[in-house]
């Protein structure tokens, strides 16, 4: 740096301090304003937000690959260690599943005949889009993930996201090559579900804890521990019949569900386009799904 005259320094230093203080206050107010405007209209920042996310997608994609490889090596080692025990467990399970298999075939035939009698038109899923998880919000107050498929792959806001075991969430924002999944345990997630064999209606509401709450249950609902929870299809966002989880705890504070999926261990997910009309057009993430 060039030496400045002493007198200049004497004036400039306090001026700079004042400017810095002013900048600090200005930025603090700006943050508050952004927070308020974002709350009033969640869509106003969506485009800017997804543009930035899109720009970071290649970096995140590249960074997440070595981690995935490391995790795969650990998995492989664990797999080799457990091989024997797993093999005998699988044999036993296979024997049991074969019985179920024949039962399922009988039921499928019967179901087909009954559907023929009723002239029932099945709701077919249109297509699956597979995507890799490239970022996990890791946020204590936000439960979401970024995947490397976006508008150019046909992903739209509102599409449900599943893995083999069941539902994990829905798409809330789409960029050109990335999309954000709002997980079912996020504070903003509301999923209309049916519980147990009696198909009691409820809404699965996330609160950022590991076990989301079942709310709006009828007061006389008969719920058993371990009862299966599936989407009800009400509200039109989620198609009916996707597995969500089981009832995991019941006490004075209400009923809580355990998801079938450990979202922190996911590498690939499937985004399902059921061809339902886009109820959540525009991806308004703050709007909860209407119940009933």
């Amino acid at each position, binding site marked *: 740096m060039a030496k400045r005259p002493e007198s200049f320094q004497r004036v400039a230093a306090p001026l700079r301090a004042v400017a810095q203080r002013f900048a600090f206050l200005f*930025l603090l107010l700006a943050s508050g304003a952004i*927070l308020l405007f974002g709350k009033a209209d969640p869509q106003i920042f969506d485009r800017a937000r997804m543009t930035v996310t899109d720009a970071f997608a290649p970096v995140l994609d590249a960074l997440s690959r070595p981690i995935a490889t490391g995790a795969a090596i650990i998995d492989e080692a664990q797999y080799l260690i457990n091989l024997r025990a797993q093999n005998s467990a699988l044999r036993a399970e296979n024997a049991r599943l074969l019985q179920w298999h024949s039962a399922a075939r009988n039921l499928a035939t019967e179901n087909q005949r009954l559907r023929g009698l009723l002239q029932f038109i099945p709701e077919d899923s249109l297509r699956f889009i597979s995507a890799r998880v490239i970022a996990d*919000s890791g946020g204590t107050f936000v439960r979401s993930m970024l995947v490397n498929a976006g508008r150019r792959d046909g992903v739209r806001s509102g599409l449900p996201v599943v893995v083999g075991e069941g539902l994990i969430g829905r798409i809330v924002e789409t960029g050109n090559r990335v999309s954000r999944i709002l997980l079912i345990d996020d504070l903003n997630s509301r999923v209309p579900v049916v519980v147990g064999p009696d198909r009691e209606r409820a809404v699965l509401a996330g609160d950022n804890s590991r076990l989301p709450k079942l709310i709006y249950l009828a007061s006389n609902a008969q719920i058993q521990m371990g009862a299966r929870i599936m989407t009800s299809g009400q509200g039109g966002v989620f198609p009916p019949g996707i597995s969500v989880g089981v009832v995991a705890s019941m006490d004075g504070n209400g009923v809580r569900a355990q998801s079938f999926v450990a979202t*922190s261990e996911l590498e690939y997910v499937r985004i399902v386009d059921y061809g339902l009309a886009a109820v959540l057009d525009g991806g308004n993430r703050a709007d909860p799904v209407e119940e009933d």
Partner: protein
Amino acid sequence: MKGTIWQRLDFIARKLTPLLVSLGLVLISVIPLRLPQTSFIVPTLALMSVYYWSLHRADLLPALAIFFVGMLQDILTGGPLGINTLIFLAVYGVCVSQRRFFHGKSFLVVWWGFMVVAAGALALEWALSSAHAGSIAAPRPAYFKYLITITVYPLFAWIFARIQRTLPAVE
């Protein structure tokens, strides 16, 4: 200005280091680790960086830089925009105003300062997130996140201190 263009570029790169380190930590914190339940215990890495540089070299990580770090954190985690900018700026404000108190104190005092600041930051995050969503967020994950964040702080502070030694001196 003195030196060749490479020396000047080197000088600029060194001045930008605290900002780049902070942005890098934001990126690292959203990388999926694929370990069981890690999403509940990822420490707030950028908070450590903001705290450290605000205390030791606030001239190299000014409020505007902190604003960008918070903004990137909000954008990549998908949280409501403005929450982390507000929190990081608040941490910056506290650190800059208390810098004299911490100057020349032992590491334990600085660590204790971080425990207090991180508690405030996570409480603020919890309150803002709950208010924004209109329902109460479960506080337990925040508590675990707090514990892990203050536990790993010494490791990151050590790395930051190593980086700090390579930086140009205060003008």
